[in-house]
């Protein structure tokens, strides 16, 4: 039995359980559409300012909302880990020969799959509002960026969950990183309109990498090289935080 099969089984379990929660499904479907509608109306005139590269704010916004949704989906993922921990589910898995890595990978994959499905919905909603996002290849890049950013922050979230093992601490950390990382990016507003010190700092922000990669094709003047670099950075970030979560899992095991 290999890690991939076990990861699939463990991820399937969580997705199945989630699919049985109607309220969860409704919120996951409605919220990203709501963001898209709300922000596109609220900031509609913002593209009168220079620097957006387009006069249609919905074109500018759609990839950003996909990234934001994926980012949130990842940051809160640790809550599920704490629940499994409290209910003894993790221990039951640990007493089987299943790979320890698969227990963590299954959870991270869950966030990525949810985020990707949400991104599809956002793209469809965006299309209805007139955002084409660069067509098929643009869509693929947006889905990929959503998948990776969700995995990256799910890794952080699960790692924190396994170290704190407390819901309140987990919530505090998710909130602490949430809004600052969103606003330290060009998610809502053109980069040229941000003070230059913030522009520089935002280059360290994985949310900014995801936004820049996802938006690459949606706007005129696609720079494939730059998009590639951001996607690679995102993949490295996801790999790094997955390693952090796995390492945290080992340290949790040592405390048993």
């Amino acid at each position: 039995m290999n890690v991939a099969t076990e990861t699939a089984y463990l991820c399937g379990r969580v997705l199945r359980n989630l699919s049985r929660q109607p309220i969860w499904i409704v919120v996951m479907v409605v919220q990203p559409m709501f963001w898209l509608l709300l922000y596109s109306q609220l900031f509609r005139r913002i593209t009168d300012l220079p620097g957006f590269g387009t006069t249609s704010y919905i074109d500018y916004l759609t990839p950003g909302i996909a990234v934001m949704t994926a980012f949130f989906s990842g940051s809160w993922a640790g809550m599920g880990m704490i629940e499994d921990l409290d209910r003894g589910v993790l221990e039951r898995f640990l007493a089987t020969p299943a790979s320890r890595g698969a227990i963590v990978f299954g959870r991270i994959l869950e966030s990525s799959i949810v985020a990707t499905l949400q991104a599809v919905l956002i793209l469809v909603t965006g299309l209805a509002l007139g955002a084409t996002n660069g067509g098929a290849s643009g869509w693929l890049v947006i889905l990929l960026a959503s998948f990776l950013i969700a995995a990256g922050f799910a890794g952080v979230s699960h790692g924190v969950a396994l170290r704190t093992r407390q819901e309140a601490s987990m919530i505090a950390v998710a909130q602490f990183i949430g809004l600052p990382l969103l606003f330290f990016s060009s998610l809502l507003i053109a980069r040229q309109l941000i003070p230059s010190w913030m522009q520089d700092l935002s280059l360290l922000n994985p949310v900014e990498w995801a936004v820049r990669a996802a938006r690459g094709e949606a706007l005129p003047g696609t720079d494939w090289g730059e998009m590639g670099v951001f996607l690679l950075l995102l993949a490295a970030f996801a790999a790094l935080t997955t390693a952090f979560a796995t390492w945290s899992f080992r340290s949790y095991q040592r405390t048993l």
Partner: protein
Amino acid sequence: MDAIVVDGLEKTYGKDTRALDGIRFSVPEGQVFGLLGPNGAGKSTTVRILATLTKADAGRATVSGHDVASQAGAVRRAIGYVPQASGVDREATGRENLLLQGRLQGMRGADLERRTGELLETFGLADKANALVKTYSGGMKRRLDVATGLVHRPHVLFLDEPTTGLDPEARAAMWEELERLAAAERLTILLTTHYLEEADRLARRVAIVSRGQVVVEGTPDELKRELRGDAVTVELDGADASRAAEVARGLDGVHEATPDGRRLYLRVEHGAQAVPVILGALDAAGAGVHAVTVSRPSLDDVYLHHTGREFRADDEGRA
């Protein structure tokens, strides 16, 4: 061959919580063995080490011939582990829980389907097989826990407090299931419990555990025979029962007298006959008596007899 060998395991949590202090016992293949003791005695810690969930600081242990520290993978394939706190997924159905458990144990296809159906039937869960576990009663949930531990037909099953928290009816039903199981599946079962009655009914041999060590081992009958007669507890007005214990030891029909603060624990041949004699003697010795109770021997008494401590005193430790 012994299915379980525990040889001098030691484990300390944090700086000074000594959970295991050289515990030692072995269980022959196919036997149901009971670890009996109060919460905090080290029973769960022992089982968790045997189930490869935690590591001992010293000592060694084998399960089905595999070393729990160096051959954890082989041990995990050989065992079923039913923890004290239910580890089943409440948001999944009973069948889904069993299927996932089997898959994590490497089972597939028709064999897994058949085994799952068989277990649901055996444990009386077939009717609710496709209902979410959160709709199950406490007894059903516990039966599913046990079934989960059995999916891959393990050689050794660990049952950590299988009936704690169940109402008497569900407990009796669980005992019946476990008795049938032990007979039918030819399993080696290590059972931990703090119910003397449970060990008595299910286990062929019992070890009493206190402060991380086995204090006595034997068949339930042997242990009870040692404790024939009644238990008498005397609460004294004065601060120290050790004087009173000396007085009581000289009396006819008193087997044993153990002082504990203001309390005096006695084992006597016949409670009703002994009480007037004891009270008379204590009065003559000038020891004022506050209250007296007479009871049949219980786990408290077995425990007190072998450790010189009250059962509850160990309760403050780690479970």
